[in-house]
């Protein structure tokens, strides 16, 4: 594949997975500018690591590993320095197009879900994102580097807490 085709293929790949990149960035960074920086770093690392991708392995496993590893490292670095790294001023890699009319109730639920995710530890957060992305226990275990049994145990605990949070919210409402 020549460099132009390679570039086009990579762009398509990012285009197809932009949602997950945004969701990972959103889960690890509260600030919009930080999210933008993180997203750029993930894209950069995906591009840079592209040549090391073993085509015999599952693409999504590789992509989640890179995105989550970068997100955790970035999150920890930002927290440590308390600084954000400026890039490109007002330029944004992901832009919002026409905003659609949202279903208010669903919007609120998503917000609550995001709030819950943002309160989790870095590793639990990664686990939860992979679960919500409907990855199998096997793939989650492969991405994280723990056993499937461990994935199941941890997920059941986190889901229990999540259910509790939603039921408390409903009772409150």
């Amino acid at each position, binding site marked *: 594949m020549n460099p132009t085709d390679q570039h086009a293929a990579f*762009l398509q790949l990012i285009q197809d997975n*932009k949602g997950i990149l945004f969701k990972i960035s959103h889960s690890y960074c509260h600030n919009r500018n930080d999210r933008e920086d993180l997203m750029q770093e993930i894209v950069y690392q995906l*591009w840079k690591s592209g040549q090391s991708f073993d085509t015999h392995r599952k693409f999504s496993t590789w992509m989640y590993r890179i995105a*989550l590893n970068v997100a955790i490292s970035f999150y920890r670095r930002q927290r440590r320095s308390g600084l954000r790294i400026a890039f490109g001023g007002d330029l944004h890699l*992901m832009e919002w197009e026409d905003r*659609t009319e949202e279903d208010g109730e669903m919007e609120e639920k998503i917000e609550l879900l995001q709030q819950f995710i943002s309160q989790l530890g*870095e590793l639990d957060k990664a686990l939860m994102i992979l679960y919500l992305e409907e990855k199998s226990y096997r793939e989650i275990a492969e991405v994280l580097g723990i056993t499937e049994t461990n994935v199941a145990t941890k997920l059941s605990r986190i889901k229990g807490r*999540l259910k509790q949070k939603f039921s408390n919210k409903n009772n409150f409402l």
Partner: protein
Amino acid sequence: MSTDEFQQMWKAYDVKLEKSLRLNLRLFQEVQSQKARSALRSLTVSRVIGIVIGILYVVLLVFAFWYVRTQPVMAVSFAVFIICSVIAIGMYIRELGVIRTISYGGNIVDTQQKLAGIQSSIIWTLRICWVQLPFWSTFFVSNELLRKGGREFLAIEIPIVLSLTIAAVVLYRNITVENLHTKKWITWWIRGTGIKSVTRAMEFMQEIEEFKKEG
């Protein structure tokens, strides 16, 4: 609410993003040409700078050692400085080797454990630095100073050397990862050496260990 509903909710979020997010392709090439700001890069850069400065420092020390080689106290002091610096450089080179094996494409637990391990390794370099402490009070003691200073000089010098030796032993034994949590004076003593990031890295290491545990 069933747990699958959370996945449905997440899917709805996906649909919303699919509709409303647009990738800015124009910026894409700029991002690719940007310098990597990754944790790996900053770790590599700091180690390479440390190694270069360390080598220059050792070269200077070797010159100084050669110059004072006939003066035993000074020669021993410079020899200790050289040995400690070479050990510290060796540790940095080893870390550089570990950094080279880290890939973001590796599983999360392994990758993050290696990263946090390197961040926390500064503790070993600090211990080595403190070993040199007593020799900072001897590196200027020439044969002539010993001869001319006589008993008065020794009466001042020996207690200083002994005190610094005791301090070095105490610090070497106490600057440990475990003591960062239990002995506040250690944290206070080595503040300003990036110890906060070391403590956080250690906490994260513990978090990873907990995460790996089943049940």
